């Protein structure tokens, strides 16, 4: 931190003012209001559509508001008590477990295929493209596609019949199977993103490391364990947190495909139904806060175990 160069820069940028009054100001600030003029609109959006709703949510969560009435009756912690004591509210967390298992399978599959394609492979771009493509598709199109895939006599049943498996179950009609089918659909949809992220991280390893490992006679497993795995540690940590919070807030696939029928209601479906179908904004806000707190806790844990060197700007 030498003063001379920064003073020189300041001179260049702001010739009229005295040099090096505050050497820490590397870049000149111009007149004080300028950055705020640039930030005015973005901050207005941020506050209006993120922070005010979150603040309101805390306020609604201690009321019995229905979303329309002018008066909001204060009920204290009643909504939170209902969530934690009435089984129909926390039973939906069990549904998240299916998605959590699905997310685990998704990460393992993504890692497996990314590792395979990091070695020399014929038609590499073709395989990469096909495995990734589902991630880009419209969620409603995927939902309709899989309704047809899972329906009685649909694609899945016909395929199983080729292998001689008759009398398949009702994939979306049987409450003990529906969540597995829906979680599998989510894996089909989202695996491609994890796969591409892993592949990118693996390929950023300089090829000399693999060559050197070859010279040392390392096996494929050793290359995976000692070169590939360390190189994707950061992205693995990030994807894991995204997978967990994604599993807890699973919404789109079950909402589009079953609407939450047959025991496939997830926590978020329950929240939006409580708010918009049963007009209980107060209770729904409390549920949203429970989810928000859980997601924040998970993120904090992840930050602790996978410290992110880029967590702050600059």
């Amino acid at each position, binding site marked *: 931190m030498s003063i001379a160069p920064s003073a020189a820069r300041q001179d260049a*940028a702001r010739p009229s003012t005295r040099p090096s009054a505050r050497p820490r100001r590397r*870049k000149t*600030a111009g007149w*004080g209001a300028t*950055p705020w003029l*640039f930030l005015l609109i*973005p*901050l207005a959006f*941020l506050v*209006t*559509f*993120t*922070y005010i*709703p*979150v603040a309101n*949510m805390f306020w609604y969560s201690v009321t019995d508001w229905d*979303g329309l009435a002018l008066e909001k009756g204060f009920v204290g912690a009643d909504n939170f008590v209902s969530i934690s004591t009435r089984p129909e509210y926390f039973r939906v967390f069990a549904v998240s477990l299916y998605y959590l298992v699905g997310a685990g399978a998704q990460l393992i*599959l993504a890692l*497996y*295929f990314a590792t395979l394609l990091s*070695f*020399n492979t014929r038609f590499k771009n073709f395989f990469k*493209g*096909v*495995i990734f*493509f589902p991630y*880009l*598709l*419209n969620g*409603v199109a995927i939902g*309709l*596609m*899989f309704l047809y*895939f899972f329906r009685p006599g*649909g*694609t899945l049943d016909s395929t199983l019949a080729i292998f001689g498996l008759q009398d398949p179950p009702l994939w979306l009609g049987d409450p003990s199977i529906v969540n597995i089918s829906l979680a599998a659909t989510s894996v089909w949809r989202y695996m491609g993103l994890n796969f*591409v*992220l892993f592949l990118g991280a693996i390929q950023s390893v300089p090829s*000399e490391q693999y*060559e*050197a*490992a070859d*010279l040392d006679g390392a096996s*494929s497993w050793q290359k995976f*364990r*000692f*070169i590939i795995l360390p190189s994707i540690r950061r992205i693995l940590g990030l994807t894991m947190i*995204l997978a967990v919070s994604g599993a807890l807030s699973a*919404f*789109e696939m079950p909402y589009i495909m079953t609407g939450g029928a047959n025991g496939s209601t997830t926590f*978020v479906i329950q929240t*939006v139904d409580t708010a*918009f179908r049963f007009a209980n904004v107060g209770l729904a806000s409390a549920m*949203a806060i429970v*989810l*928000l707190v859980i*997601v*924040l806790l998970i993120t904090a844990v992840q930050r602790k175990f996978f410290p992110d060197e880029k967590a*702050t*700007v600059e």
Partner: protein
Amino acid sequence: MTTTERATVSPPQSTAPASRKPRRRRADLGFLGTVLKYASLVAACVAALMPIVTIFMLAFKTNEEYRTTGPLDAPSSWLNFDNFVTAFTQGGMVTGFLNTGFILVISITGTIFTGTMTAYAIDRFRFRGRPLVTGLFLLATLVPAVTTQVATFQIINGMGLFNTPWAAIVLFTGTDIVAIFIFLQFMASIPISLDEAAMLDGANRFTVYWRIILPLLKPAVATVVIIKGIAVYNEFYIPFLYMPSRDLGVISTSLFRFMGPFGSRWEVIAAGAILVMIPTLVAFLFLQRFIYNGLVSGATK
């Protein structure tokens, strides 16, 4: 794994200069390994494509064929476009594409301006409150969007935007933090001396932003257009919640409404789904590399 193995494998550079063999980067998987590798890749492709291929075939079948043939049977004619015509004309797909296009153009333009302005202010200025502003944008990434709709709905409703396309537009434009981070990262690579030279020539901060920073950010803008475009095109819940009117259907909600009137006509639903997926496929084939790079830089921020 034992520590001896770590010692032999992990510092490989130490042995490299000793022996100079010709470069080879062949996977030493052996014959069986290679067979297994390609078998699993082909299996993954089948799993990825099967649901798409079956509804593609279904889209060309007549209703009679749909009821009498299995999902894995090819249609009798690949030139039967009746279902596509029905989906397009009766399913409100035209309105859907128009509304999606309108929302897409405005909200992407908005995102580019709000994103670049935020990034410019944070990267090029040192001012009181800068850490606070940065922190506010960072913290917002942690709030799960679907759940806050419970309260956001009241705001949109209060502003009189409910059941107008502007509800979706302001929410998409709002705070695209991923876009801000892409711009920030790219802006750090633009030398400050350019700003300073321009200011020596008498340019003010707005001229610098408009004439120097914005044009140089083009590659980052392209990335943001692609990821934002895909996200807006695929978004379902925001238009579903805020724009229930039929005339305001975007492609997601128009397609979702197929389930009612066409409930028993799966061949028409299939055609609708294929119509929605075609633009995505075209974009993917032409912009592959940008899409991969954009998503990687977007997701890791």
